[in-house]
């Protein structure tokens, strides 16, 4: 066996603020570290990281390593890969947790290849085997119809973790930890893939991923006009509007509204699925919602096997009254 030890998470802090996914990785790292008797470190790579260290400790890191370089402000493939490769060689973590977002998807396969180690991608659960102490990562396959349990023969065991699947710790400014600034001596960090421009969506309402209430529409909505009813309901409930892939592929709504395995992952208090059949691929994006409501005219739709509450009926007849009663209850 190798001498690798510790659980390292890759922290992301664009604009100097750690992301929600970073706190989820720390929560997961802390949980398995406590079972495995390991320590948790956070590796922050970026530009202008002062202040980030304390936050990472407050969310559960025992040690924070920083690689602070003006050229690392935003993710670029080759530069981040060089940094991660060097850090893993120097610090030899046993487990490396990376978020399964645009950074993790791009970085983790290349990193695992360079380190000659295995990769468990897009995992939704992490367990420590009681008898052997080995990490077992659980990853949905076949769109979520099947779950695969993966272990690794080599270290570091690189795992990318699906957003919104892990519970962060409560922020506690009383936690203590060490901060180590790393000087990797890598010289100029450049990437062959150069970023010419970043075009960010502007949001007028609440961001889908952050919304406490999500009202989503699918094929059953029948066209872009139907989404107006959903928007009105979402506004009254202080929520955001999402969509299934069917509605996006039909061109009724833009793709950044897609909820599902290759769209947004949401975990609201209330998820209202309107005219959505409930494919496994869609449910992978919303199954962490506390309450799922289905409104669908097909009583046989799979959504009724996954929802907590449902009404069988045409949304055009159901939604206006539902909206009206909600409004009365909210005012009253």
């Amino acid at each position, binding site marked *: 066996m190798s001498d690798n030890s510790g659980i390292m998470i890759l922290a992301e802090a664009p604009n100097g603020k750690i992301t929600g996914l970073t706190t989820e990785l720390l929560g997961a790292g802390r949980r398995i570290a406590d079972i495995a008797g390991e320590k948790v470190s956070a590796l922050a790579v970026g530009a202008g990281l002062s202040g980030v260290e304390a936050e990472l400790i407050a969310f559960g890191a025992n040690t924070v390593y920083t690689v602070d370089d003006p050229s690392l402000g935003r993710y670029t493939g080759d530069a981040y890969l060089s940094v991660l490769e060097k850090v893993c060689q120097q610090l030899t973590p046993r487990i490396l947790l990376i978020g399964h977002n*645009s950074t993790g*998807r*791009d970085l983790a*396969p*290349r990193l*695992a*290849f*360079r380190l*000659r180690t*295995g*990769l468990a*991608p*897009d995992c939704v659960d992490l367990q420590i085997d009681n008898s052997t102490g080995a990490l077992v990562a659980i*990853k949905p*396959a*076949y*769109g979520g*119809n*099947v*779950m*695969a*349990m*993966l*272990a*690794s*023969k*080599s270290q570091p065991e690189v795992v990318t973790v699906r957003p919104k699947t892990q519970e962060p710790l409560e922020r506690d400014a009383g936690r203590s930890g060490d901060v180590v600034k790393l000087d990797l001596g890598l010289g100029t960090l450049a*990437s*062959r*893939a*150069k*970023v*010419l*421009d*970043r075009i960010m*969506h502007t949001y007028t309402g609440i*961001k889908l991923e952050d919304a406490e209430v999500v009202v989503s529409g699918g094929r059953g909505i029948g066209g872009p006009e139907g989404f107006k009813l959903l928007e009105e309901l979402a506004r009254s409930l202080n929520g955001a509007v999402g969509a299934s892939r069917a509605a996006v592929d039909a061109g009724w709504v833009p793709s*950044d509204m897609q909820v599902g395995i*290759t769209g947004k992952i949401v975990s609201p208090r*209330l998820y209202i699925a309107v005219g959505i059949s409930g*494919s*496994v691929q869609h449910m992978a994006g919303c199954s962490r919602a506390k*309450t799922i*409501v289905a409104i669908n005219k097909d009583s046989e739709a*799979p959504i*009724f096997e*996954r*929802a*907590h*509450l*449902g*009404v069988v*009926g045409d949304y055009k007849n*159901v*939604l206006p009254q*539902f909206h009206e*009663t*909600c409004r009365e*209850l*909210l005012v009253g």
Partner: protein
Amino acid sequence: MNIIATVKQVPDPEAPAGAFRIGPDDRVMVSPTVSSVLSPYDESAVEAALQLRDAHGGKVSLVCLGTEPDDSFLHEAMATGADEAYLVVDDMFQNGDAFATAYALSKAIAKIGEYDLIVCGRQASDTDAGVVGSVIAESLGLPSATVIRKIEVVGDKLNAERVIEDGIEVLELPLPALLTMTSELYTLRYASVMDIMSASEKPVTIWSASDIGADAVELDDLANRSILRKQFIPVSQTQCEVIGGDSAQEAAANLAQALRSRKVI
């Protein structure tokens, strides 16, 4: 411009959940009733390749790691316009992980030799892993980018729109490069009956491990570090309470009341 698209045959992801079962060894997924299709994101990669060839000339080659020396899938896949196909089949790659697949495909691509761009699906719809493309790029020493929705070739460079959280990045990469493709702007064109008939005449080259210079020692060094312990079918424990009423309106009002009594709204 010569473009290589990697393609994979997968169980139809639109099949109902009940069609997916795990074999008695707890490891292998069996789906006898599910038909095989071209992985949906690979369709987008093929369409992107065809559009670039149509605009800039050259050819589109498909490369596939298969389990059997059956080239009918590749003839079907060429009906939409690809010019030629290569199928790698060897016991050495059976039951391998994503890194083994990437090793086989990168060896095949190196043997094809002349290419300006490699396109892959962002992830296959069976494993949903998204590993193979990036690892091919690493193996061949190529610049790469993942989850690309649009490609434009400008001289000896390309511009690619990469989907990120809350927006897109416009990247510039030197050629040759490898990109993994997402589906939103590339929907695979239809093949006519004539296309399907003429595709049966297009060449498919079948290669073994030794044909592409793959060897077991190198494969062992580069791949198969992951152990698939077991696979299982997740069980939903949710019990849906269907809210009724004398009319749709009454059911709707009852639903809102039910949410209130559960303190959800």
